[in-house]
């Protein structure tokens, strides 16, 4: 990868960009995030166009990998730490649980996938039912993504299998709520 790929854009580094994006996806108002970083909309629009362009141009994928790492990183950003998304007490408890209990995380991932298959916005469904916003959910997913590199394939398969089982369980629930699947009643 060329070193130029990691040069800040208008003074916004990849670390800043990931932290800003995370705050916005968590639900913090965009204007507050820009104000905290001391930039205006015209600067942000360019930053938010050019960093994704760099990710697409970088054939080594290092920019994207770093973005993911910073997005998952929970070290407070010096300029953004004061901005907190509104999280319910239930959301705080569930967020702590998906971090400590991999099976619970896999269950919610399965539920989210099932929700999309039944015409729901899965991210919104998780927020409404478990109080976890997409920014935090993605951040935890990226943390597990890093951890996966240290796991053997058997352990990985175990998690994947569990997620599949949970997805089927939630799919059944969503199907029931919507009056069944269209192929119900077709028997061998």
């Amino acid at each position, binding site marked *: 990868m060329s070193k130029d790929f990691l040069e800040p854009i208008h003074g916004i580094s990849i670390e800043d960009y990931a932290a800003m994006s995370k705050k916005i996806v968590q639900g913090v108002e965009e204007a507050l995030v820009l104000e905290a970083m001391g930039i*205006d*909309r*015209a600067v942000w*629009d*360019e930053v938010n*166009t*050019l960093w994704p*362009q760099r990710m*697409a*141009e970088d*054939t080594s994928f290092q920019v994207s990998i770093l973005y993911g790492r910073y997005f998952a990183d929970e070290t407070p950003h010096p300029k953004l730490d004061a901005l907190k998304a509104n999280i319910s007490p239930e959301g705080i408890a569930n967020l702590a649980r998906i971090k400590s209990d991999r099976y619970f995380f896999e269950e919610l991932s399965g539920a989210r996938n099932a929700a*999309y*298959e*039944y*015409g*729901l*916005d899965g991210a919104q469904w998780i927020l409404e039912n478990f109080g976890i916003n997409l920014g935090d959910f993605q951040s935890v997913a990226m943390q597990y993504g890093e951890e996966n590199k240290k796991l053997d394939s058997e352990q990985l398969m175990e998690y994947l299998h569990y997620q599949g089982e949970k997805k089927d369980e939630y*799919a059944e629930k969503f*199907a029931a709520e919507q009056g069944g*699947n*269209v*192929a119900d009643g*077709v*028997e*061998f």
Partner: protein
Amino acid sequence: MFDSLFHRQSGPDKAAQLAWQERLRDVETRWFAFLEKLEDRMESLCSAALPELRALRRATDDVNRRVYQKVLSGVTGQLQNIHDRAYHTHDEKVLDTWYEFREEFKMTHAFFDFGHTFRQNCEKRYQEFEACLWGWDKLLHETSRENLEEEYRRVLEICTAGGEKFTCKQCGAPISIARAFFISVNLPCPACATQNTFDPGSEARELPFIARDLAEKRVAPLYEAYQNGGRTPELFRQYLRARYDELNRMLPDLKAHHEKRYHNEAATTQGDEGNE
């Protein structure tokens, strides 16, 4: 053919063969009928869903565009459900029967061919079913691209603020939006030189995404020519160049970035011949 096989064979396994013959025919008939019923459901679902999706896709606001996405996802979710049903049934009913048969009749056994034909027939029918399913899936997803030209023109108009006249916040002199902007931009007032900021609005920010899909759609015939013309590096290069030329025409302000990606793609994907 099977009858002549039976005549060649005699002995204690004849009864077993007869039972197997009946069982395999039964499974095959059921499997064919099962897939046909699933195909009927798919057809009913998709032919009813396609006009709905096309209508929803014409939405011009964020909320209704999300409704389109969710309905598309729900309909393809049902195709997935049908796909999984066929997959599990194939596993449990067809393959398990075949494995059981193969345990009893080794490849050298004269009756083995009967089972082998059963397996081939079932597989062929399964492939037809899958092709039918992916055909519907493709049609459903294509609804997202059907009116891209129209949508591009509409958003382009928004990016130039539809010719609307803006005035300088400082001195009131007119500031014209001479070209399409998809993000905020500072424009100096021609009279007093004050920097005004033009924000083209939320819809304009969709322009790069529409342009990406539209470029792909406009050069689709070239991609087909590459696919059907022996997948040569030259045909691939023609397709790739044309795609990026389209993108440059629609988003000239990002040309330098497009060109970097063009060179990356041209260098890594030389067409199939180039990889040999």
